[in-house]
Every structure is written in structure tokens, then in C-alpha cells.
């Protein structure tokens, strides 16, 4: 019995000590890259992730080698010295065409991040039920509605943004509960219409409603807004994080004026 106990005790002591892997913080390269059909390539941002909980801004990366491959041809992007971490293509030979596939390559130090996206075909025939919306800021409930419709024969996901036509337009609301730094943005959905009330509009003057056809990688990222699950792949990039995706758009203008 003594022998049995000694063997058991030895066993316990031997297995009791084990190496524990401790997750170390390592900077990840973050790519935030959007392509827009029939538009120049300029929404490409490269930066570095920060330690969890530090709640500080990402550190921009200005000296990465960034390229887009289209039709087996490589187009090298240039760093924009005016905006930290921003890259753009300054020539017109890189076309963003619906249905075509694009590959991004980011080389920085020993990291090489790649990702692929295809440009969606996009919404067509966007129409608005009204050209002008009157807003009564004294009212407690929405008083006006506008219907926007478009063709979505490809059953693409779409997301809608309302933004002012220019940067110096007057902000309508005087409260702290809406984010004045952001425009109005809808949740991606498969529908082909959207109804807005006057409460959804943020700026007086000419506003632009843009319908973006979005790929699944964008929809997935957007939906993760409300949850973190352990298993979803929250990036479509290899060796890095963030997103590389493409949109096709249609837009319509409408005018916002105060109710008199």
C-alpha cells in the first residue's frame, strides 16, 4: 500500500507542473480598404492594432508597400502625406469594374497581408418619393416620411448612407445623443427600399442618399458590432486584420429645409 501511495504522490507532483501558454501582445497589421465601382482608389488605410483595453487610436503605417492586382496587372499605391496611414492610386488606368476581382497586397517589415474581393453589380434605378423634406425641430415625433426604392435583381446586401452634399452645411439637431461626426447609416439588408423620416436627417440643405451594394465580408463585419463570438472569422484578410471590400453605388439628392 505504501508503494502505491508513493507512486500516486509522485505521479501527482510530476503532472502538476505544466507550461502555461501566455498570450503575448503582438501588433497586427490592420487594413481598412474600400473600393468603389467606377471611382478612384483612395480609401485605403493601413495601421497597427494596439493592446486590448488600452483604448488608444491605432498607429498609422506610412511606409508600407501597398499594391492592387487587377487583371493580372499590379498597381502600386502611394502614401498620402496629408492623411496618416492613407494610400491612394494617382492614375486612371486602375478601373474598379463591377464583377471584377481585385487583390490587395500590403508588405510592411516582415508582414505580408493579402486579401481578395469582387466588386458587386450594385443597385440601379434609385428613386425618391420626394425631392424636399421639411423638418420641424419643435415636433416630438417624426412628421414626414420619404420612400427610396431601387432595383436589386442580384439580391445583393445593401446599406444606405445619408450625407450632406458639402462639408459646411448646418447640423439640424442640438442634442448629445446622436453622433454628429457620423452620417446616417443603415443596417445591411437584402431589401430594395428604405423609408426615412425627418428625424433621420442630420443636415439642412442638399443631402445625398447613397445606396451601397455590399459584399458579405462587410455585412459580417458590420453585424459583429453587437457580439463577439469565439469562432467567426472577423476579417477576409490573410496574415492581418481588418477588411478589404468593394461597393457599387447609386445615389439621389434631396433637399432639407426647416418647416415654417
Amino acid at each position: 500500500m505504501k508503494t502505491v501511495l508513493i507512486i500516486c504522490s509522485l505521479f501527482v507532483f510530476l503532472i502538476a507542473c505544466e507550461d502555461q501558454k501566455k498570450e503575448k501582445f503582438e501588433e497586427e497589421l490592420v487594413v481598412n480598404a474600400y473600393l468603389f465601382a467606377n471611382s478612384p482608389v483612395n480609401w485605403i488605410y493601413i495601421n497597427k492594432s494596439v493592446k486590448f483595453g488600452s483604448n488608444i487610436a491605432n498607429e498609422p503605417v506610412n511606409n508600407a508597400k501597398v499594391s492592387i492586382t487587377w487583371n493580372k496587372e499590379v498597381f502600386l499605391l502611394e502614401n498620402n502625406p496629408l492623411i496618416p496611414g492613407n494610400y491612394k492610386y494617382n492614375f486612371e488606368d486602375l478601373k474598379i469594374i463591377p464583377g471584377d476581382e481585385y487583390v490587395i497586397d500590403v508588405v510592411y517589415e516582415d508582414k505580408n497581408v493579402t486579401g481578395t474581393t469582387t466588386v458587386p453589380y450594385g443597385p440601379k434605378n434609385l428613386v425618391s418619393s420626394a425631392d424636399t423634406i421639411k423638418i420641424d425641430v419643435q415636433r416630438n415625433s417624426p412628421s414626414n416620411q420619404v420612400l427610396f426604392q431601387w432595383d436589386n435583381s442580384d439580391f445583393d446586401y445593401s446599406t444606405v448612407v445619408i450625407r450632406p452634399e458639402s462639408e459646411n452645411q448646418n447640423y439640424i439637431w442640438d442634442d448629445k445623443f446622436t453622433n454628429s461626426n457620423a452620417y446616417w447609416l443603415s443596417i445591411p439588408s437584402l431589401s430594395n427600399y428604405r423609408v426615412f423620416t425627418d428625424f433621420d436627417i442630420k443636415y439642412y440643405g442638399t443631402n445625398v442618399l447613397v445606396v451601397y451594394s455590399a459584399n458579405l465580408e462587410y455585412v459580417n463585419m458590420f453585424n459583429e458590432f453587437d457580439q463577439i463570438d469565439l469562432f467567426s472569422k472577423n476579417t477576409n484578410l490573410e496574415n492581418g486584420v481588418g477588411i478589404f471590400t468593394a461597393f457599387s453605388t447609386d445615389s439621389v439628392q434631396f433637399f432639407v429645409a426647416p418647416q415654417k
Partner: protein
Amino acid sequence: MKYIIHIALIFLSLGAFAQSDKLYDFDFEQSKLTDVLKSVHLKHNLNFSYNVSETNKIKVSFTRKSCSVETFLETVFEKSKLTFKKVGTTYVITSNIQGEPVLNGHVSGIISDAKTGERLPFATIAEAHSSMGTLSNKDGYFVINKFVPDTSTLVVSYLGFKPVKIKKSDLTFDKLINIQLEPDVEVLDEVFIESSSSKTMELMEVSKFSLNPNKVNALPSLGEKDLMRAIQYFPGISATDETSAGMVIRGASSDQNLIMFDGFTLYHVDHFYGIFSAFNSEAVKSVNISKGGFEPKVGGRVSGVIDIIGKSGSDKKTSLAINGNLLSANFLLETPLSDKLTFLFAGRRAYTDIIQSSLFTELFNKVVVSTAKNGLFDDAVSETLEPSFYYYDINSKVTYKPNKNNVVSISYYTGEDKLSFQGIQGFEAFDYKTSENTNWGNDGISLKWGRYWNDKVYSNVTTAYSQYGSSINYSYEFKLIEELGGDKFEYLGSQINKVQDWSLKMDNEIYLTGNSQLDIGLSYNKNLIDLESTFDDNLYQEYHERGSLLSFYAQHKVQPTEKLTMTYGARLNKYDKVDTLFLEPRLNVGYKVSEGINTKFSAGMFSQTINRAIRGEIYSSTPDFWVLADGKQIPIISSYHLIGGATFTKKEYTLDIEGYYKHNDGILEYVPRLTNFEPGNIVSPELYFQGVNESYGVDVLLHRQKGIHTGWISYSYLKSFNQFDELNKGIAFPSPQDQRHEVNVINLFKVKRFDLSVSWVFGSGKAYTEPYSEYTVTLLDGTKKKEVILGQINSSRLPVYHRLDLSAVYNFNIGKAKANFGLTIFNAYNRENIKYRKISRVDFNKNTYYLLESPLYLTSDVTLLGFTPNITFGIRL
């Protein structure tokens, strides 16, 4: 300091194990062996068992100093026909003639409680001085076919009862006999558990033990006598979850355990979010636990089996028991309705909706509020929550015994938890109001007929129905202040979840010659699952599925030699949602190496067609739900177990060691990704990952069974890994149940009228996924969206878990009634153990509740119960 005390406790216990054999002086001249044995017994306090007619025939001359008893007996018996064997602390002297077994008929009988008439399931019927024996079945029935001439006494024993010895000459052969056992309530050295160390056939089975419900009171608890919590103190079953229903057996998730009460299956076995088990121990007669490698008779799950048999009620007299504590009270009535009919009613109810003691507030805040915080404002609202919560359960059983050959019983159980709360909080611009009504619980009913056909065949037919249901109705309301118009925005949601289980079973026991038993049976089981969730009157998710399983089994228990016992057989299943039959062969072997040393081995295949889906989120605590295998998206879990071990018994100590390996194919991980946001069937292929789990480990139990100080030390070593092709690059990662080391030190003392207990639980850190980095991306409208980068799945460990629990129960009499009064202290040194580490997203400024430009992510620890005292009382008439 506390570590030193506990390490000392462990080594004190170990030291007692290592006592060496003593030497004595002998001096006898031509004395009758009978007189010699009596003299040695009186002088040296050694125990002998012998047949006087044999020992009277022998004269002994033996003089020696410093001689062991063994040498003395060997020398004395050298030229005689006698031999001896040490059984426990007794030297058993028998005739040396090893003749053929005498097959002069068989003994069959029914074992029951002398005071109440309750039939005693799984009682041990062993032949004294040999390893032959058997167990009674669920109805207390047994058969012994094989006797060896000189070992002619039957010893019948059952947990918490005085053993009965019956001489062969007193037995009635070929006729059903009644054996009644007296409760052993006054004896100090009662055995709390019956480990697999016994010499009888059944108890040599691997990974099986039974628990005495009457003795659970002696263990520290949160106030309620809690069977499930008591089970967790044994090796291989995790006790660090603190929910009595979180029954993690050898690394398997709790849905892989079959939990039966009087033949019906229960799917949810707790009250108060797992703090208390759903079983009223007053209504329970027997609990049998199998941690793996179970026999072909049992199926439907791949990890463990907990088989609970309810009391039938006394057929002798009416008896009443009342127990209470600061949270709940329970009541038991058992009475004979006629000489053939008994009735039992047990009810338990928490009065937490009427009196909200500080204990309730502590439990509620820890268990409900801290784990449910999920909304944007809940941190603020939780301080204003007004909860109304209670639970209840009812057990009722009618048993009809028209004659010795038949027993019919109807058992009914219902239990429910009801929680409702609402909170309101005013902010600068609006009031936020939340309310929730949640009900969940089980119902079950079974009709069972046990029939003794003849001395060779015993049958049981059981038909049962059980239902687990939960419903949640919740609402959120934002009301703008009057200056902003006073508008109200209300959101309503609900979820209804129901699992139904119909079953019909027939079990036949056929007693063959030579202590061999053939069990054959058939079972049919149908599951119906319905789940619906709505939000703002829109159907959000739904799942409706039905499936039935037909199973046939055959198993043969045999004891070919005195040292070898074996159960082998197979279970054949036909599941209606897949085309193939699946066969599950199983084998259990026990081999007695020498007196006090038994070895055991088990191998077998198992399957499971019902599976509980658990969300893979780490951000919220959403309800789980059950799904049925369809052979495609939801696989049938198939498993095999390999288990080996040994049991060493010396004096009052038992050391049990088991090593095991388990492989489960078809485990499920539910991931509510994109489609979570749109109405639809919950079983969409992209929502599930199928994978493999491998668990292996060692369970060690050192048990002191007798004396004023009893108890045990258990140690569990576990490695459990999951592997999914689509996750973690296909590399295996620790499963959520992976906890490498767990130690339980349980000390029970009987000091005069006091039952005292001190228990200490230690567990190494559990696996979790640690976020290590964060970044932001800009959305189309300019919003900054913050993302989190998680480390390797479950590659980090939470801090170690440990706690000390104390209890003291004072037993006294009030007239003829027996009463007790007790104090329990859970987590005596107020250790802050962590249940899980939560990631929270903060969208609003904590002080102003203005929207932040970019949300913050924070980690926080959800801690388990701190120092929690409770007072208990009980009276039995």
C-alpha cells in the same frame, strides 16, 4: 496558512494508511482451537470467524514470541483441513476442501427496509469469506445460484443499514424470501459512499459508485441538502462550477450525461440558475452514478449516468418530515394507504418571493444580475432591479404491491423556477425601463411494473414522459423626458423552448446457473423539440424537430472464477432520422488480485442523438437549447471509452485509482453568425461546426470509511481537447471543461450529537479565450468600429479556484420526533473565485450616458459566491 493545514490533513490521512502488521506472543499447550481463538481475541483484540464444530476438533500446541498472526495460524493449520483468509479486520477460518460448487438449488429474495418496507435497490448480497455475490435489482430482487460448501453465510448490506448475516442452514431454497435490513442510524462509523472496492460482482464494475441520500445532510451545502453537489465532491466530477447542476463528468459537457429519476429523463436539473439541484433529497431512496463505461442496459448518452430512484413511501406507518433554511422549506409525507398500497408526497418551495433575506440578495446578485448584464444600460439598471423569484418542486409516488411477485408504481415530479424583475433608471434625456418574466422547469411521470415471473426471470416495464420547458418574455422601454416630447419606444421579445421525451422500456433479467445473469431488453424513445423566439412580434428563430430511437440490448454478467467477474454485451440502436443501425459493444472486467486488491477494466462504445447547443459567444449569456441529430448538420455523437484501474483496501481505508481515455466524434459548436439576425430555422449549416473531443485523465480517491473521523480525499487530473476542422486552423484546443487538477478534501466528524464537516475544494484555472489586441475600422458613414483580436481559443487560464466549506448539525429529540439544527458556511474564507471573464462593450459615457464617438471594450470578472452562511433545521415525526 490554509494551504499548510490542508496539506497536513492529506498527509495525516496518508500516514494512517501505512501502519505495519503487529507481532504477538503465543503460548498454548494442547488447547482446543476454539479456546485458543477466544483467548487471542480477548488478549490482542483480534477478530476471528470460524465454525465451532470444526475448531473444536483441533488441539493446538504453539509457543512463540514476536510472531505474526498469519504465521501462528499457518503453523496451527499445517496439518489440518482448515485454512484462513483475512477479510477486512477479521481472520476467517474455513475448511480447506475446495469442492465443486454445490448446485443444490438457488436462493432468491427481496431486500427491504425493516422500518418502512421500502425495497432496497442495488443492495449487496455476498457470501461471507468468498468473492461470490450479487446486487439486488431496482426492485430489491436478487438471485444467487451458486454456493461453495464451507462458505455458507450470506451477508446482505446496504448503505446506511446494518448488515444482516444469514446462515445457509437458515435459508429457504427455491422460494422467494424476504430479507429486512434495519437502518443504522445510531452507529457512528456509517459509510457515506460505497466505492467500487467491494468484493461483489457488481461493485467491481468500473467508474461506478452509489451515494446514501440520508447522509448528504452531513456535507456542507448552501442550506439545502443537495445530492448533485454531493456527487461533485468525488473524483472525475468537477466541483468548481458551483452550480450543482453543472455536472461535468470527466471533461464532458453536462448534456452528455443521462439523468433519470424513477425511469424518466430530466433535461434540466437545477433550481436558481444552478445553485440548487432539482431533486428533493427527502424523496430520494438511492443514487447511482456511473462516470463512464456503463453497461449495455443503459444508453442514449456518451458520458455519465446518474440514476435516481425515488422513495416509495412507508408501508408500516405514517411519517412526516419538515426541513427548512433561510431560502426554502420542504415537506415529506409517507403513508400506507392499505397493506398493499403506499403513498409519498414531498414538496419544496423557496420563499424568496416573500422574504428576501440577505442570503437571497447575495445569491441573486451573483447568479442572476452579474451574468445577465448584457444591455447598454444594465450596469445602471441592475442597481434598481426589483426581483421576484421562487422555485418549487413536488414529488409524488404511489406504489402498489398486490403480492410478492408484482410491484406497480406511478411516480410524478414537477419543478419550476419563476423569475420576474423590472428595473427603471432615469437619465438626463430619457427613462429606461426593463422587465423580464422567465419560467423554466421539468415535469416527469413514469408508470413502472416489476414482475417476478419465476425464480429465473424478473421483468420491468416502464413507460415514462418528461418535459423540460422554458419561456422568457422581456421588454425594454425608452421614454423621452417631457421637454423632448415624452415619446415612448417599447421593444418586446420572447422565447419558448420545449423538450419532450416519451419512452417505453422493457428490461428482463434471466438468472442462469452458476451466478450468471443474462439481461435483455428493448426501449423506444421519442423526442420532440420546439423552439420559437420573437422580437417585436416578428418570428426571429424557430426549430421544430422530432426523432425516435429504438434500442435493443443484451448483456451477460458472469463470474467464471472466484477472482474474475465480467459483464459483456451490446446495444443495437435504430434512429429514425438516419438509415443505418449502430451497434455499441461493451465490456467490463474485474479481477481480484489478492485480498484487498482488485483491478478493473472497461471498454465500450456509446452514442447520443440529442445534443444541447451552446452559443460560442463570450459577450453574452444567452439561453442554450436542445437539437436532434439529423446525420447531416447535427451529427450523432459517437464515443468510445477505455478505462482501467485498481482498488486497494486496507483496514478502514480504500484507495481507488482509475485512468481513462474518451473519444467523442460529432460534438457540436453552435455559432450564431450572420443568420442570427434574420428570421429562420435555427438549424442552418453555417451555424454549426462539427468536431471531435478527446479527454483523458486519472481519478484518485482515498476514502476512510469508519470511525469518528471519516471522509475522503479525491484528486482528478484531466486533459480535454476539442478539434474542429474549421476552427483554429484545425488545431485542437482545450475544451471549456478542461481543468487539469482538482482536489477535494472532505472531513466528516461525529462528535456526540454533532455532525461536523469541513471540506475544501481546489481546482486549477479553467481555460478561456483571452483578447489581446484591438483596432478600429471606419464604416461608410465615418463611424469608428472597434474590433477585438482574440488569442488562441481557450489557451489562457483563469486563476485557481479554491474554497472552504463548513457545516455543523446538532441532532436532538423532541419527544419521539428526531430533530436537527445546523449552520453551514459556504466559502468560509471568502475567496473571490472567478466564474468567467467577460468582455463588455461600453457605448455610452458612464457618467453622462452620452454616446461615445468610439465604443470601449473592457474585461471584467464575473465572480462566484463569497462567504455565504445559512441556517438549517429539520424535524421528523
